[in-house]
């Protein structure tokens, strides 16, 4: 199958999965809403209803894309490290520390915050990788446990040092404007984060497909025994993949706290978005260039559901069901219905032509 055909069929599968999921959502809305049509309309068109909601959608998609990139990098090396959430918290904590320090009064706090967040995330990604290489510790368990440590450590530091008394110890003071990402369109969340996400897409694509490190990483993911046989040091590849993925997770943390959406460190700020990166990575088949599109599409549904939750009588949790169905359909590698039938017709005809 050629590259073009593959992209077409994968896109077809994705759209089909989304349509099925939306149909199920419609049924749920029909059953639970007093005004089902308006509710469904809010779900489907809400994100486009104003400049502000478009901004929120794009901001959400940028964050989803970064989470998806972090996961796809380790998934391509066939490592199931799930530590993005912890990296986001540590990244957010470090970026906040920079933003709330005297450095925050200068624009330098924006690059410094991002760098500090990436270093922190990288360290957090490195730990389960190193533990696996040296101690054969299962990366799924160790990375998930690190998430708890990172979450609680961030909460603890927030309460001890950064929290504003006014907030009831759940958030810091707002960052000085110099430490907040500039927005492209006033009073929307469309800010520097979008640029950082797009740059990261290109960087990850370049690393994976244009460098020897990326080829080694992908070969290790395809077949670790083959990699060892070829002379690739697969332990180094594994640890470095998890470290680089951690840096992306850390960057996502900076995006959260220094973006216009928060502009402060708040307890539980990532609200579970990190794990949705798994869905983005799976649906995009770990292809970095597909990730922004998947993130845009899924971010749209997420925003629609959120707006539906605010504006109508159906709760936003419907998105959880939509997500589950999309994952099931995409991960189960179904083939488009009708194709078998089409093949039979085509096959039958070519045989008839031959005879």
């Amino acid at each position, binding site marked *: 199958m050629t*590259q073009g055909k593959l992209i077409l069929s994968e896109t077809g599968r994705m759209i089909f999965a989304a349509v099925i999921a939306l149909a199920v959502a419609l049924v749920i809305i029909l059953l639970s809403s007093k005004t089902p049509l308006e509710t469904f309309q809010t779900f489907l068109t809400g994100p486009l209803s104003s400049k502000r909601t478009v901004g929120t959608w794009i901001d959400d998609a940028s964050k989803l894309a970064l989470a998806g990139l972090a996961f796809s990098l380790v998934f391509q090396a066939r490592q199931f490290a799930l530590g993005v959430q912890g990296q986001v918290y540590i990244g957010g904590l470090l970026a906040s520390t920079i933003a709330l320090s005297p450095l925050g009064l200068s624009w330098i706090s924006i690059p410094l915050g991002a760098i500090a967040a990436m270093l922190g995330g990288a360290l957090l990604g490195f730990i389960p990788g190193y533990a696996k290489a040296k101690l054969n510790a299962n990366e799924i368990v160790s990375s998930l446990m690190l998430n708890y440590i990172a979450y609680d450590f961030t909460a603890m530091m927030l309460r001890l040092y950064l929290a504003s008394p006014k907030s009831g110890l759940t958030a810091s003071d707002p960052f000085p404007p110099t430490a907040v990402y500039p927005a492209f369109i006033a009073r929307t969340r469309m800010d520097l984060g979008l640029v950082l996400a797009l740059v990261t897409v290109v960087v990850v694509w370049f690393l994976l497909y*244009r*460098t*020897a*490190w*990326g*080829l*080694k990483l*992908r*070969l290790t993911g*395809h*077949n670790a*025994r*083959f*990699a*060892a*046989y*070829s*002379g*690739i*040091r697969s332990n180094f590849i594994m640890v470095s993949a998890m470290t680089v993925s951690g840096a992306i997770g850390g960057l996502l943390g900076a995006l959260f706290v220094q973006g216009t959406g928060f502009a402060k460190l708040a307890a539980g700020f990532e609200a579970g978005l990190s794990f949705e990166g798994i869905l983005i990575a799976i649906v995009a088949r770990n292809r970095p260039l597909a990730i922004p599109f998947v993130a845009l599409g899924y971010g749209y549904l997420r925003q629609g559901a959120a707006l539906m939750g605010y504006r109508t009588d159906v709760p936003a949790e419907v998105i959880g069901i939509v997500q589950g169905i999309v994952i099931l359909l995409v991960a189960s590698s179904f083939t488009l219905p009708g194709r078998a039938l089409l*093949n039979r017709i*085509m*096959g*039958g005809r*070519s*045989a008839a032509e*031959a*005879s």
Partner: protein
Amino acid sequence: MTLILEARGIDKTYPGGVHANQNIDLSVTAGTVHAVVGENGAGKSTLMKILFGVEQPNAGEILLDGKPIVLHSPRAAIAAGIGMVFQHFSLVPSFTVAENVVLGVEPRSGLKLDRKRAAETVQALAERFRLPVDVESPVERLPVGQQQRVEILKALYREARVLILDEPTAVLAPQEVVELFAAIRSLTEQGRTILFIAHKLPEVLEISDRISVMRAGKMVGEVAASEATEKSLARMMVGRDVALKVERAHKGPHEHFCRIAGLTVKNDRGLDAIKDMDLVLRTGEIVGIAAVEGNGQSELFDALGGLRPIEGGSVELGGIDVTDLSVEEKRDAGLAHIPEDRIATGSAGGATIAENIVATELGDTRFVRRGLLDGKAIRDHAVELIAKFSVRAPGPDAAIGTLSGGNMQKVVVARELSAKPRMLLVSHPTRGVDLGATEFIWQRLAEARDGGASILLTSADLSELLALADRMIVLYRGRIVAAFANTADLTPEVLGSYMLGFAAQGHEELKAALA
């Protein structure tokens, strides 16, 4: 002699456009062994899948006992008395033999599986058809040959009268082949019919009554086994004369290149697989290792290739001690390795052909500079090797996993030989590879030898070892028990008695032969 199974005018085009079967006729007489031979991709497997109901033909009909029958699924084929054993078994590893055999049609007592009756029935079946197997043992503990018996028993338990065996000998050691053939004979004596798919011609000639030959989707002829020779069959299969013969190395003053001293290697269970081995390879020679599967040859090759730790002793290549070096460093010292399993070890199925070829050369400035891949050079190199080794592939960007076994093996051989190795490890280079490709691979190995490479070769196929090796050693339970110059009077029988441990050369005799 009555015909039991007939195919008339079978035609099959796959949706991708491959015309796999073109107007195929096949008549199988009851109580005989009927072989269908052909190169990889000749359409044998497609025909068998049609006869077993896995694939549906676009045209043609199938007759069983003279009556037309439509096999719309394997279930229908089984109900009609047709059974099939595929190359890849479908057994539940943790279930016992008896449980696997009865799975799906279990004898019951009430709602429960009647274990006792299942075991007894399977035991009786095994004895009746000379397929001895421990019915209470979990399948995962059995060697491949016995797992195959379980598959055959499964078909017989479902009362198969016609049994299709798809390349049954490809996974078997020589001794296991002998046992399989004994079972096949007992099956036909008791009126069962065997359809035997193969491409190893000596085996086909030994076991079959009639032989049908396929080439490129067409049936090119049918002969009685008694009237066919290996040569005549090969010509029918390939469409030209095939010379499965390789010139021996020119004798001359060849210096020692690879020196293995006191080598000890452990297997996965921590036991010694290779014990205190001494062996010297000269430049420009092929040393063949004959051994029954599981006598340490796999571990030896893994250890020399750097995939398994060396517990003791040393390995020198051209005066450099490579014992503790990484795979990358060993490859830099001139080592290349054609592994026994091209799918599990020799390739990354999801990666492209070009990526698979460059995988061992990522330190080479032709392909990688400052950590960046030179995509054009990598593709050009792959295109060149694809042409040079006549690999049938859509192009360098096709996933290697989509190639047929023979073509995949050619890519592996091409990659390993393109590094111009001075020491080459070769395991089962032509396992599951068709005749044309076998001839080609043998010639390339002989060329590498003539170019001065030292080659250590092992194969389950003794005729391959005898055709290629300049010297032969026999490995039994991790030790060298015999060594020979490969002369005309060295026969498989002589090797066999050492391989099975019935004989061993004395210390002095061995030392003289190894020097």
